């Protein structure tokens, strides 16, 4: 399975060159740390889907000695690995450019990325390739919009939930958040595996 990660990196080696300028652009524009962490995380995993959008790639991967389970797993594990790398690099760039940031902002960015990945990855396995990238791009902005607007709404209108969350200590909040996101991510992973195993190539 490690070979599948390596494959992503070989495919994207040219994209890597624009990765740092891309992040720098956001830093210079003064974008919030959370959003930078999110955008940086999205970069490699979603590009990987973009490269593999052609039907022939699925035929290739499935003709090689990989199981479908492994192919899906490489995407889900890869996304987390790339996210950690991207966030590490982003933090480094932020330090170099003397921008202050908190671990909290980064953590929220990472959580949002995993939530977004969990919601969109199964789409790649359900639909036929073609316009997926556009669908995902649009859903990315819709997702951002919802996060920005819905969270304040929920906080105002669902006071019991809000109070529950607010009453948690920082540690509890982290544990609770991590567990929630892991469950959502896991369910998404399972769903993608089942969908992909049924898929005719």
């Amino acid at each position: 399975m490690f070979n599948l990660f390596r494959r992503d990196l070989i495919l994207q080696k040219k994209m890597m060159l624009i990765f740092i300028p891309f992040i720098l652009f956001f830093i210079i524009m003064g974008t919030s740390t959370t959003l930078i962490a999110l955008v940086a995380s999205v970069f490699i995993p979603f590009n990987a889907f973009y490269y593999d959008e052609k039907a022939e790639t699925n035929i290739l991967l499935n003709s090689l000695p990989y199981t479908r389970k492994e192919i899906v797993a490489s995407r889900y594990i890869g996304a987390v690995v790339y996210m950690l790398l991207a966030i590490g690099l982003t933090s480094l760039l932020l330090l170099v450019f003397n921008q202050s940031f908190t671990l909290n902002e980064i953590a929220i960015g990472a959580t949002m990325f995993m939530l977004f990945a969990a919601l969109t990855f199964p789409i790649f396995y359900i639909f036929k390739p073609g316009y997926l990238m556009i669908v995902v791009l649009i859903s990315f902005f819709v997702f951002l919009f919802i996060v920005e607007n819905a969270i304040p709404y929920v906080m105002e209108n669902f006071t019991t939930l809000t109070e529950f969350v607010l009453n948690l200590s920082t540690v509890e909040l982290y544990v609770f958040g991590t567990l929630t996101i892991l469950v959502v991510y896991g369910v998404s992973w399972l769903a993608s595996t089942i969908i992909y195993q049924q898929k005719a190539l």
Partner: protein
Amino acid sequence: MENVVELKGIKKAFKGFSIDQIDMEVKKGFITGFVGANGAGKSTTIKMMMNLLKPDQGEVSVFGLDYKTHEKEIKERIGFVYDANVFYEGLNLKDIKRTVAPAYKSWDDDLFDYYVDKFGLPLNKAMKKFSKGMQMKASLAIALSHHAELIIMDEPTAGLDPIFRREFLDLIQELMVDSNRTIFFSSHITTDLDRIADYIAFIQDGDIVFNHSTEEVAENYAIVKGELDLLDRDTEKAFVEVRRVPTGFEALTDNLKQVNDIFGDSVVIEHATLEDIMYYLKGGVSHV
């Protein structure tokens, strides 16, 4: 004789096309040509052999193993070539090798270099700049570099010029020096198969019409020409398909001996090429 691939009672339905029942074996150590018109079900069958498609019913076994429990072991031992380029077009052959090679335990870099050299393939040129023939050669070099016992090819000669097709067929024959190797390849260009196949599996409208050795095909199938008055309800039974023209009839038989017994010297018997067989069977008489 050992079978490398066995398809038993395979059924698969699509919108507007279905495979009703396929039973087929691919014999170990031989070249089996898989022939049929465009849309007859060749690619679908090959996809089921590669586990890219799952049959609605029936069993696929490769090397005596089934895909449910031995997917990786099976695919380790298969080399594949498809009619379309499945490799990422933006990459050069060196990078494609780097993405494919680690997938196989028995990948052999020296062997790959040997084929790259033999085919005169550039390592640093993007795949999309390759001609169709070069792409085929590149796919073949990749398919051959992990000592695969079974090589499955879907229409490898489609879109190739005649000279390259001839080279390709020579190469396939060279590969068979290794007696452990089995080659299964589909084509709608029947002359390719006439030239090199040991066995011919013929598919039409999702049914395997026959799967015989080339000798058996030559012994049993023939084109018969004669006067119209020789035909009646009984004698016609010797034929798979009869075409009548004002000057007489032309027919395809799959039972040459019976034709000899019935008509003796009163008819002209000619060798039936695969193309003849395909053409006559396309006439629509269903037959097994």
